[in-house]
Every structure is written in C-alpha cells, then in structure tokens.
C-alpha cells in the first residue's frame, strides 16, 4: 500500500525514533511511504493561538502540496500535526469563502480531497492477520495504551466513536500478541504544552498517568504522539520529583512495539534514544533465548 507521509518537525528532532521505527517496520507491513515535498510547519501549539488565518494556511499548504502529488491519503504520525491538519480540512470544507481566501493566501489550489490518516488508522488497515502471521515473534507484554488528547479529540473533527474510552490502539496491540490492560488515564492530559515552560506541572500531570500504569501492572506505556512520549519519557526526572518516587517503566511508540514483534534490533527502532531505558528489550531478548530463538 502506497501512502503519503507528512511527519512534521518532532519526528526529525526530539522524537526521531518515531520516524525511524515507522520507516523500519514499513517494509514488513508492505507500506510504501511517499513524503510530501516542500512540507512546512503545521503551526501546532502557537499559530492557532495567534492568527486564525495563519493557523489554517500552514496545514492547508501542506495538504495542497499533497494534492499536487496526487496523494489520496496522507499519513500524519504526529498527533499534534494530525489535529491541525484535520481541523483545517474540516473548517475549510464547511466554509467555501474561507477556502477560497486560504487558497489565494498559499498561492496554490486547495481542494480538500486528501484523506488524513493517524498512525492508528493506517496500522488498522495494514496490520492484517496475514501480515502478523509472518512476524517472527510476539510482543507479549502487559501494556497500557495512552492516547492523550489529540488522537481522538475533538470528536466533532476526529469522528472518534469512543472519545472517553477509545480502543483502537488496544485492538492493534492485541494483534501482535500484547495484553492491553484496562486503566483510567487513557485520555488524561500529559501537560503537553507546558513541556518547556512548566515542567513542574508536567511532572504532576504525567506523574498521575505513570502511577496508574504501574498500579495496573503494565510493563510499558504505548503512545502514538511525540508530545506524550517526550513528556512521559524525557520529563521523567520532573515526574519523579513531583511524585517522590522512582519509575522505570518505558514509554514506547506503537511503531516500536510492532518493530519488536518483527524482531528488529533496537538501534533500528531508535530504542536507545529513550531517556528511560527500554528494559523490555532485555526481557524480550531473554525470552527469545529461553525459547531458543535468536533476536
């Protein structure tokens, strides 16, 4: 399956392991990723707070570029980028005058014909039973799935069915042999926008999430958003300070979990880039040794 890719800034910088792991698993999933040319910033977290037209123009330009490349679907792995692109598409579909205005502003025709997919949308499509059959091993770990805010909200735009208790990620992880646990913090706020300015708040908010994951007996937290991952992983010190405890639970991108099931090595999946060591890895390797398989 061929699909457009708009990965945005995070996946080239603080969360480059997300992109690395995505690219690493793509061949096994028969996924051909074609990058949107000349893409630009989605405007997340600042543009929409300052200038509405700018906030619409930035994603519209990327979408218009995707249209020029005749992409029917474009995968947006970053939840924040996805939120901006989907919101723009929804608003311009409603308002023809605004669509015209934005099109003039970006000096490109914009039709709004490209379908925007989250990482979960695409994985749901390509991770079929047949594909999973060929996986060398199972990702047999107890995990909790953390959605954060932008993957499912606002429901008017995302059209998510179970906004308060989504299950798509659990469904995908079950296919690779994981045991997703029921927990209470799936869609709680990680403190995303405070990541730079108020790490103490991030510590408190993300701390509650980590605490609940530990309580349920999870071995890892699985995410599909760079912001969620960096707050839960990079801000672990702030979290430990806020909670007065030490936590060793790793935070994995869903693509990394799939990569582990594929038996890909940790550097290919960018696992070594995490601040919290991915101890799962050793478990996985140990298990593989125990069952006589080499990882």
């Amino acid at each position: 399956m061929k699909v457009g890719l708009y990965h945005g800034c995070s996946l080239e910088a603080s969360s480059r392991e997300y992109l690395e792991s995505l690219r690493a698993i793509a061949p096994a999933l028969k996924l051909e990723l074609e990058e949107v040319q000349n893409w630009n910033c989605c405007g997340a977290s600042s543009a929409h707070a300052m200038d509405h037209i700018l906030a619409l123009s930035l994603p519209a330009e990327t979408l218009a570029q995707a249209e020029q490349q005749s992409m029917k679907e474009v995968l947006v792995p970053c939840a924040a980028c996805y939120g901006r692109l989907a919101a723009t598409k929804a608003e311009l579909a409603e308002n023809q005058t605004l669509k015209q205005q934005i099109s003039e502003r970006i000096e490109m025709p914009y039709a709004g014909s490209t379908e925007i997919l989250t990482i979960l949308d695409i994985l749901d499509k390509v991770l079929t039973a047949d594909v999973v059959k060929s996986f060398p091993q199972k990702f047999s770990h107890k995990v909790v799935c953390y959605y954060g805010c932008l993957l499912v909200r606002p429901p008017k735009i995302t059209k998510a069915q179970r906004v308060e208790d989504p299950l798509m990620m659990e469904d995908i992880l079950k296919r690779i042999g994981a045991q997703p646990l029921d927990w209470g913090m799936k869609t709680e706020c990680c403190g995303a926008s405070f990541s730079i300015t108020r790490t103490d708040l991030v510590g408190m908010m993300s701390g509650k999430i980590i605490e609940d994951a530990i309580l349920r007996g999870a071995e890892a937290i699985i995410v599909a958003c760079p912001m969620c991952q960096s707050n839960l992983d990079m801000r672990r010190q702030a979290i430990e300070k806020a909670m007065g405890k030490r936590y060793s639970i790793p935070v994995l991108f869903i693509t990394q979990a799939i990569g582990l099931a594929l038996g890909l090595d940790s550097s290919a999946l960018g696992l070594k880039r995490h601040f919290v060591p991915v101890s799962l890895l050793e478990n996985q390797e140990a298990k593989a040794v125990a069952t006589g398989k080499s990882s």
Partner: protein
Amino acid sequence: MSRIGVFVCHCGENIAATVDCEKVAKTCAKIPGVVYSVDYKYMCSDPGQNLIREAIKEKKLTGVVVAACSPRMHEPTFRRACAEAGLNPYLCEMANIREQCSWVHPKSKATTQKAIDIISTLVAKVKRNRALFPIQVPVTKTALVIGGGIAGIQAALDIANSGHKVVLVEREPSIGGHMAQLSETFPTLDCSQCILTPRMVEVAQHPNITLYSYSEVESLSGFIGNFTARIRKKAKSIDEKLCTGCGECMNACPIKKNPSEFNMGLGTRPAIYIPFPQAIPNKPVIDRERCTYFRTGKCRFCETKCPAQAIRFDQKDELIDIQVGAVVVATGFNVVGTSFFPEYGYGKYKDVITGLQFERLLSASGPTLGELKRPSDGSTPKKIAFIACAGSRDPAKGIEYCSKICCMYTAKHAMLYKHKVPDGDAYVFYMDIRAGGKGYDEFVRRAIEEDHVNYIRGRVSRIYERNGKLIVCGADTLLGAEPVEIEADMVVLATAGIANQGAEELAQSLHISYDHHQFFAEAHPKLRPVETNTAGIFLAGACQSPKDIPDSVSQASAAASKVSTLFSQKELTREPVVAVINRTAPPVYSTCVGCFMCQSACPFNAIEREEIRTRDGKLIKTVARVNPGLCQGCGTCVALCRSKSIDLQGFSNEQVYAEVTELFA
C-alpha cells in the same frame, strides 16, 4: 336585508378610558345594515344582556355584534342571551375592542377609530353568518386505558368506580409498572409494593375492568365517543383458564439464566416466568425468544410438569377489536442505561448502576432479597456515590429537561443506604437540589442532617476503576471548584427519565401529538394538562413528562374525571365550527374532485371517503367527507383544497374575505 344590532360595552373603565364608546356606537349606527347601535357600561351584566334580548325582539335583528372583550371570555354568555331571545346563537359575533384595542393603545381618536374599524369588520362578517346547530354524537361508555402502571391503575379504578366499563391494556406480563419495582417511596418511606399491590388486586377483581396483559394497542380509529381499538393479545403460550399459577413450570424450565426485566438485569428468570411474586395476573408467560422449544424445537419440560396441562405451544397472537368512547394513555417512561455515559465507563463497570437498579437492590423482593450487595462481587459497599442529573439538564447529552424525580429519589437512596449500612459513607453529587413538594425539602434536609449524607455540589467528570474501587472525579463548586476524588465501592447514576420505548409509534397510531423527546403533548400546558389535542384521548402519568407517584396519581384521577364527565352525557354536543365539503345539485353533486389532499393533511384523521351512488347503486363520484365528530375546525384542509370545495362553518372563506375587504374599504 340584514338587520344588525351593535352593542358597545364600556367594560367599566377598561374600554371607555381610551375609547370614546358613545362616538363608536353613534358611528356604527351609520354602517349599512345596522339598524340599532347602543353603548352600555357593563354589557355582560344582566341589564346589559337584557338590552340585547329586548333589541333582538323589538328591532327584529338578524345578527348581533357585541363589541367588548375577547370571545374567549364572554362569547358563550352573549350567544346564550341571543338564543334566549330566539336568535340562532351563531348569528352573534364578538368584536374584541378590549384586548386588541383599548388595552394596548393610549386614549386617542385613532384608538376610537380602530374600535370602529374592528366592529365594522365583524358587521361585514355577521351579515354572512348562517344559522348553525350544535353537533350531536353518541358515546360508547367504555374507556380504554393504555398502560398498567400506577397512573393506568388509578385511572382505570376511578373510571370503573364511577360505574363505567374499562379495558386496561398492559404490554408486560403483569401490571404494576415501575412503581412495583421500587423499594420505598419518598418522602414517607412507605413500602412501594405494599401500597401498590392492593390496587393491582382491585383491578383484577373489579367487575367493570377487563384486563389484557401481555397485550398492545395496534391501532385506534374513530372519534370521541366512538373509537375502535385493535388490541394484539400476544401469545402467552398458556391456557389462562386452566393455569392455576402453581409455578411448577418455572421450576421445570432448564433455561433459568435469562436477565430479569423486573430486576433491571440484576437477577435472572426462567424462560417461562411470572415477572415477580405479586404479579397480576399471577400466571406465567413463555418468552419465546429464550425458550429452548421455540429456538430448537426440543424441550417441552414445562409441559410435562404442568399439573393443569395448561401449556399451549401452538397458541397464536389474538387480535381483538373493541369499541370505546374515551382513551387514557398512561404508558409511562423509562430511564437511560449506564451505557449512555462514556465518561462513566460506557456501562462496563458492574458497580456503576442506575437508580432503578438500586431500587431493586434495596427491595425485599429484589435479587439480593433486600440486602445491599454490589453486583460485581456481592460485598457490601462501604463508600457509595450518587450522581444526580446523569444525563438530565445536559444539552450536550441531548436531554435539556429536568427529570424531576431524581433529586428526591437520590436523597431517598442515600438515606436508605445509611439505614442499611450505618457505618458507610454516602456522597451525593448534584447541580441543584430541586425538592419542591409537600414534605420534600424536609426529606432532603433529613438525609443531610440526620443521616449525614455528604452532599457535594458539582458534577462528576469521569469514573474509572482502580484496585477494585471506582474513582469518582468531580469538583466541589461550593469550595471554589476544588477537585474531589472519591474512591467509591459503588456508584448510582440518577439517569435521565426518557419516553418509553415505542412512544413515538404509539402516538402516531393514536394520532396524538408529542414533543421532540417523544413525550406526549397536552392540549394546553396550564389549562388543559390532561387532555390531548385529539378529543376523547387523555394523558396520565410519566408518558407526558417525568413525574413522581403523587403527580401521576393526581393526573390519573384528573383524566378519569374527564372521562367520567364525557360518559355522563347521553350524547356529546360539539361546537359546529367544523369543515364541510360542499354538496350541490346533480349533475355536479360536489365541486370536490376527490384528490384527497385534505385527507393526508388533516391532523385529526377527520376526513373520509364518501361514495355518491345512484339509486341502483352505480358509483357516480367519490368525494371527501368531513366527520363532524372528529373535526377540530383547524382549517388546514380549507387552505389546502385545490377546488375550494371545503369551508369552515362559522369562518367560511366568504365571511373572512368580507372581514378583510371591509378593513380596506
């Protein structure tokens, strides 16, 4: 040639203060056709009425215009006065120069002129009035009561006790409705079943009441006093005459794990079952969707065990047509389930239950025999949270209205919980406490002050499970919106009361109106609260809007008294303000072309087909005919008729045109 009399009323100062009544009377005397015009201080007083009576006789009046208040007020008074003087009452019209003139304008020449204009339009109309005669329709003195909850039971008993026959139709296998499911009732804490079951028995034994349980009304045709109802008696799969209600069949049934509707899914019942021990009638029915025999063709265990040989697997639904004169709709309500609330777990937490389920847990006849055990593990909850307004008053959930009963039953629940678990903690999250009613607010205060229930004003954002506890996240808005987290063992949602299943379909088959929440609509929210817009059909109980027991019973008695009033008459007299389809001499017979657009437009189903035939039975023409017993005189058909063949008596096109033309003359 018309001889019209105009009678201008001062209404004390009400009209005379802003309108020069003397001048009005003098000017109106000059209108062509007016032979007499006079003003008087109080036209509705006896001397005032006398003035009219005398003038009719002396001046040989052919029409009367009384210029006074709204016809809603005194039209019957003046029409009666005219009738007493020998004039057909429908030749008397009211010109409203009070509400539509003197009250809304300052004293001025223009105001006086407007009064004159109003009167002249009515003079123009009354010249074209024709003598009309009230419509007489016969009455079948049997009432149909739909729904056997407390409202239906009360209405049926009241009508039956006034000496009239009643047919009571109940959808479920037993009457009793939601009240039978309740444990204790607010604000007196008397046992619900103890006060209800004697009424249920009375229904079963009353010589004037015929009870059709496990039955539904399929259709209703006809009109006030003369309805025909078709009732579907669903197959109970037993011979009711032979069955003794011994219960052997229920013991024999191998399929015992069916969720009990009566226990709101918290208990189980066999496939052949009596919903609860005090059921009326106390005879079982077979749930054909659950019964092994009906599903696989094998079993018939119950048949072998039945000592009376009363099981009938081959029984079929029966359709019965009955004639009734009035209908009381008392089909009740329902509550939304816990799965309606994504933020409270989409119904996946076993210990998050609805108020109605909690009633069953408290009830001595419930699945736990009245012991308070939570559904998940049967332990006694030591900490319990009640959430009021779960769904109600929440436009985001599509339910903007207040469900009315929840504040009271939540207080009752918390109180009963404290009585059963004195060392437990009860929390109530609420928006406002709406405890209007006799002894109601005192009851809530008692829960707070004597039983130490913790009331927290704030809504609950979400509930999730952790370590076997339900974490209830809310805010205390009286303490500066401080976040509150309670680790509860059980949560009871006071879920919104909604229209019962099938309410919309029933309303459509009965031709009564309903609101966008499918609650049935009353004819007037204040002055006609128990009548529907369809004559002869009345409402009782929570099918109109959520109601508590006292309100349901009051409304049921009110509906019953309306029915009794109807049945106290030999024939029904109705105002002749109805539509008529013109008939003319042959060969035209009627200008009606038989398109029957009027038939589909009529909100009251009052238009039928009439075949005009020659004496030897040959069909000449099919035309529309208005059933005067059914027509409410709304005029929709008149506006719609393509060939202008329909007129509203008393408001004919000719009369209305004359009025309008007069205004611009």
